[in-house]
């Protein structure tokens, strides 16, 4: 009986909290979960910053399976949350399906483009951030070979690889860039063992700096780099702390800024496509006390120079997704 009452109480509390979400912004995290130390956590930090600065409240949900995407979107839209922010390219299809059903609700999707009158699509110029870490990699490499480990072989990840190769070749035109993808299924995001073996295989081909854009697989890449006297490069969030002194830098993707901006704008979010690049501080590279001995002032000056040239348009980095080809790298 007491257990039953507890359940009743829990249901009531849930119903209450759903009611309180009215007209507040909402955020949906992707399968990695909001404490993934990477993409989703960055989104969560942005939402948190908004809550702390404005004292507002937001509704949130962490998805457990692909099937929940549409359901979560509909539930938030029906409870009146506005805007609804979703982190991850996997939301593109469900959002495309339901956006027209809720014309008064504004949706913000990060990492994908959905063409609908009430959707704002935020994409990042990952190729620019990858270019910057590619430059650092080429400057730090002693062997003249640097490498890249991607997760699932999708255009977005090739975009990272392509920018990285272009940046490395901008510093040293003769540099050898090796790029490997972990796999072609979503399991490729969570195979650290294969990440380690790929890194070792790249090391035996001469690579001494490795950049990973591979989710959980990347943990194995950075571990292998740290265990085998290579330098790793983190991705999305600042991962320098994972192996202090053995991670050259991290390519930052400021998902938190995208979420924060959307929450600040509230239901006045401008529909359309926004791309955040170096000029908007949407992408960049991470410097902190963990890697200050690895990146010399001279290296940093060169990268800052490239950053300024990108912002004023005198350097353009090729975007793989614009034409599905890469001048600096063959896949």
């Amino acid at each position: 009986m007491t257990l039953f009452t507890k359940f009743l109480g829990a249901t009531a509390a849930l119903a209450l909290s759903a009611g309180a979400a009215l007209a507040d912004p909402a955020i949906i995290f992707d399968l990695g979960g909001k404490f993934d130390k990477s993409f989703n956590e960055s989104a969560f930090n942005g939402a948190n910053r908004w809550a702390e600065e404005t004292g507002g409240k937001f509704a949130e949900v962490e998805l457990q399976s692909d099937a929940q995407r549409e359901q979560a979107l509909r539930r938030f839209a029906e409870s009146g949350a506005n805007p609804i922010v979703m982190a991850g390219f996997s939301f593109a299809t469900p959002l495309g399906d339901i956006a027209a059903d809720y014309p008064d609700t504004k949706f913000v999707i990060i990492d994908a483009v959905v063409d609908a009158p009430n959707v704002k699509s935020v994409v990042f110029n990952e190729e620019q951030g990858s270019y910057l870490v590619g430059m650092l990699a080429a400057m730090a490499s002693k062997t003249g070979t640097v490498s890249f480990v991607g997760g699932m072989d999708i255009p977005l990840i090739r975009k990272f690889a392509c920018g990285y190769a272009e940046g490395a070749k901008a510093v040293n035109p003769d540099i050898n860039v090796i790029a490997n993808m972990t796999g072609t299924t979503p399991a490729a995001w969570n195979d650290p063992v294969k990440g380690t073996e790929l890194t070792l295989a790249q090391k035996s081909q001469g690579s001494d700096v490795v950049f990973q854009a591979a989710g959980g697989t990347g943990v194995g890449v950075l571990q292998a780099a740290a265990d085998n006297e290579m330098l790793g490069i983190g991705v999305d969030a600042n991962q320098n702390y994972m192996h202090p002194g053995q991670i050259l830098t991290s390519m930052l993707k400021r998902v938190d800024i995208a979420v924060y901006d959307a929450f600040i704008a509230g239901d006045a979010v401008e529909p359309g496509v926004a791309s955040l690049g170096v000029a908007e501080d949407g992408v960049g590279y991470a410097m902190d006390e963990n890697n200050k001995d690895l990146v010399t002032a001279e290296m940093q000056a060169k990268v800052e120079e490239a950053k300024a040239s990108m912002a004023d348009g005198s350097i353009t980095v090729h975007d793989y997704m614009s034409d599905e080809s890469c001048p600096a790298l063959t896949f």
Partner: protein
Amino acid sequence: MDLLTLLQLLDSTVRLATPLLLACLAGLFSERAGIFDIGLEGKMLAAAFLSAAIAYTTGNVWLGLLAGIGASLLLSAIHGVASITFRGNQLISGVAINFLAAGLTVVIAQSWFGQGGRTPQLAGAARFNPITLPFADSLREVPVIGPIYYELISGHTILVYVALLIVPLSWWVLYSTRFGLRLRAVGENPAAVDTAGVSVVGLRFAAVMICGVLCGLAGAYLATALQAGFTKDMSAGRGYIALAALIFAKWKPWPCLWATMLFGFLQALALRPDLIERTLGFNVQTQLLDALPYILTVVILAGFVGKAIPPRAGGEPYVKER
């Protein structure tokens, strides 16, 4: 391809094949006793998680290993109770174990460590470190044998050598002991074993428990030897590849070794597209290499290369005549 590159490739093969070998031998014991086990994957995952979690909290990898084996044994016991005691469907019980492990590991890891379903990084004595075999350094300069000994045979973690020793041990247990004979018999004709006055239930439970110990070793190898910590779903389908290897090996211990080494070699080769291109002169899609183990298994199952005959009583719960 020069010797050093070949050795690096084989070195990678050994590392990739070891978890497959342990899981394959685990499946061998279970299936030879007539209990199909597609829960190898889940048991590896649970063992990987608990071994990393305990190794991190105690700082002792051996305690972690024990905890990992314990987690795997617990799931084995569930499988045993469901499929032996209650005569449930073995495949469904196995699937349930896979789901249970995939979900529980992440939830518990999140509540213990709060790092998004990961355990913290292991360092020092909290993980298995490579061991250099005696004379490896002094023999290194000897032509041919030196590099083979130094690069390929020496420098693995202790679990690799344990796994390789378990192969002859399994062969001896299954084919030269009374226990092994009975275990094989219970997978072929449990009624005959029962008539001889030997407990079918006891034998099957023993087999399922041995399977649990071996899966525990495989999981602990993933999280504490190959990697330095647990990440969600890190077994990445290795339990299923091990099952394919078991069919490929026709349910025999020594072929298990060759099958898993072959599968490991194909995986290692898929990581080196540059080598394939240099040796063959043209580019082979890595996806094709990734799929090869499964293609080979289908070929074997279709009966092109000998016949794979599973244990006759496999998958059927034993019901004493009423």
